[in-house]
C-alpha cells in the first residue's frame, strides 16, 4: 500500500483536521465528533444532513456550506457513521424547523441514520429523510439489499440544499426528495480497485487488461468483467443500461454528472464525457445541466460513473444552478 498517510486508523481524524484547517472560512468540526458543519449563521432554514463511510471525498464534507448540506457525518473508511455522531449533526443543523437526512441505500447507513432519527425524536427535533438508490448496476429485488446510493446523491444534496436555502419546509423537502430520487440513475465502470488504508490491500483483484462494469463505491463486485476497451465502448455499455432503465422516448431533458472514482485524471474524464455526449446526442436527449469531476469517489479507485437526472420539473434546473458556498461543488 503506497499512500500519503500516517497511522491508517487515524486517517479520518487527520483528514478532517486538514480539511477544516484549509477551509476554516467555510466549515468547522463539531467538538469531539467526526461531523463537519457549515459556518454560516442560522436563519431558520431546514437543516440538511448527510454522510456515510469516509473514502468518497469530496463527498460528503466537501458539499457542506450555504446552499447545500448543513453538516456531513464522516464515518470510518467505508463504514457507516454511528447514530450518536449523526445525532450531533442533527442537533447542530437544526435551526428550529427540523432536519432532513439524505441517506444512501446501504443496510448500515439506513440502520444508523434511523437510530439517529429515533434519538432526535426523543429530543423533539423533527427529522425526515430520503434514501437514495441510484445505482442501476444492482437489481432492486427482494433478493438484494436494493440498489445502492452512489454519485447521484450529490445531485440530491444540491437540489434539496437549494430548496432548503430558498426556505422550503421539512415536508416540502420530503415531497421534493420523494419525487427527485426515482428520477436519478447512475452506473459506473472500474479499472482498478480501491485500497482501504486500514485493510492495507486492494478490495478486489483485476487483470491489467480488464475492466468491470457496475462496481460499487465500496468496491462491491459489478455485473460484468470484460477486456479493456476504448472509452467510447465503455460509454456505450453504460448508456445502454441507462436507456433500458429510463426507457426514454427521445425528446426528454436530463442533467448529466460524469463522476471520477478518485484516481482517474480529468483528462480521461473529459475524453469519456465527449463519448457520452455523442451517444446521448444520437439518442436525441437534451442535456440542460452538466458537470464533470470527482464528486463521489472510492478512495483511489480508477473509473468513472454516469449519472442522469430526468428533469421532470423546471425548478430542478434552477436548484442545480443556484449559487453555493462549499469546498467542492
Amino acid at each position, binding site marked *: 500500500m503506497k499512500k500519503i498517510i500516517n497511522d491508517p*486508523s487515524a486517517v479520518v481524524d487527520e483528514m478532517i483536521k486538514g480539511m477544516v484547517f484549509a477551509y476554516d472560512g467555510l466549515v468547522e468540526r463539531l467538538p469531539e465528533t467526526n461531523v463537519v458543519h457549515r459556518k454560516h449563521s442560522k436563519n431558520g432554514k431546514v437543516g440538511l444532513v448527510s454522510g456515510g*463511510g469516509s473514502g468518497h471525498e469530496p463527498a460528503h464534507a466537501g458539499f457542506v456550506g450555504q446552499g447545500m448540506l448543513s453538516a456531513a457525518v464522516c*464515518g*470510518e*473508511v*467505508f*463504514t*457507516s*457513521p*454511528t*447514530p*450518536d*455522531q449523526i445525532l450531533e449533526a442533527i442537533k447542530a443543523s437544526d435551526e428550529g424547523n427540523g432536519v432532513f437526512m439524505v441517506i444512501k441505500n*446501504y*443496510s*448500515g447507513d439506513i*440502520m*444508523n441514520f434511523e*437510530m439517529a432519527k429515533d434519538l432526535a425524536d426523543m429530543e423533539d427535533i423533527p427529522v425526515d429523510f430520503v434514501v437514495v438508490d441510484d445505482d442501476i448496476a*444492482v437489481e432492486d429485488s*427482494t*433478493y*438484494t*439489499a436494493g440498489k*445502492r446510493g452512489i454519485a447521484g446523491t450529490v445531485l440530491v444534496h444540491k437540489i434539496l440544499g437549494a430548496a432548503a436555502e430558498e426556505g422550503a419546509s421539512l415536508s416540502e423537502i420530503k415531497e421534493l426528495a420523494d419525487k427527485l430520487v426515482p428520477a436519478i440513475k447512475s452506473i459506473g465502470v472500474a479499472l482498478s480497485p480501491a485500497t*482501504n488504508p*486500514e*485493510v492495507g490491500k486492494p*478490495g*478486489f483483484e483485476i487483470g491489467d487488461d480488464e475492466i468491470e462494469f457496475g462496481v*460499487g463505491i*465500496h*468496491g*462491491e*463486485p459489478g455485473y460484468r468483467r470484460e477486456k479493456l476497451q476504448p472509452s467510447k465502448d465503455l460509454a456505450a455499455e453504460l448508456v445502454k443500461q441507462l436507456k433500458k432503465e429510463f426507457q426514454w422516448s427521445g425528446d426528454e431533458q436530463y442533467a448529466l454528472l460524469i463522476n471520477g472514482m478518485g484516481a482517474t485524471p480529468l483528462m480521461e474524464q473529459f475524453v469519456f464525457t465527449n463519448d457520452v455526449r455523442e451517444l446521448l446526442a444520437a439518442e436525441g436527449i437534451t442535456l440542460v445541466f452538466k458537470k464533470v469531476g470527482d464528486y463521489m469517489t472510492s478512495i483511489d479507485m480508477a473509473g468513472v460513473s454516469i449519472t442522469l437526472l430526468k428533469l421532470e420539473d423546471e425548478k430542478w434546473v434552477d436548484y442545480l444552478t443556484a449559487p453555493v458556498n462549499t469546498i467542492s461543488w
Partner: protein
Amino acid sequence: MLSVETVTKWMELFGEQLTENKTYLSELDTAIGDGDHGNNLARGAAALKEKLGANEYEALTDLLKDVGMVFVSKIGGASGPLYGSAFISMAKASKDNDSLELADLLAAGLDGIQKRGKAEAGEKTMVDEWVPVVEAVKNNSLTTETIEEAVEKTKDMKATKGRASYLGDRSIGHLDPGAMSSSLLFKTMLEAGVYDGK
C-alpha cells in the same frame, strides 16, 4: 451461570477474540463485502475494554446496556447497529427480571437483531449463527460444534441481505463475516461459563 461476573468475563474474552481475529474477519468481508468487518469490531472491542475497565457493574442490565451502547457508538457499518441492538434488547429483557434464563436473554438479543436488520434465517447473515444457537440453548444442547456448524452452513447460502447480496450467486462458497464474528461471541460465552447446559 448468568451473572454480572460471568458476563463481564464473557465480554472480556469476546473483545480479545475480536482483536485477535481482526484481519481474518476483514478478509472474509473483503471476499463478499467491503473488507471492514474486522476493523469495525476491533474498534468496538477496544472501546469495550476501556468501558469495562472504568466501571464496576452491580446489575446485569447496566452492564448489557453499556455493552450495547459501546457497540452502537463505536462499530458503525451494518454490524454496529445490529450488535448494539442485540445487547440493548438483552438489557431490556434483563431489567427487573431476576429469574431470567440465558435462552430468553439470547432470544431477546436475536429479536433485537431481526427488528433492526429485518433478516430471516437463511439470508447469509449473523442471524444464521444466532438462530441455531438460541435454539440449542433452549434445548440445553449447545456445544462448540453447534456454533461452528452454523458458521459453516452460511458458506452454501446465497446472500439476500447486507452488502453480500449484491453478489447474488457469487456469494455462495464464502463464509459470512458477521456469522463468524457471532460464532466468536458464542464460543467465548461457553468459555466464560455463562452457559450451564449439558
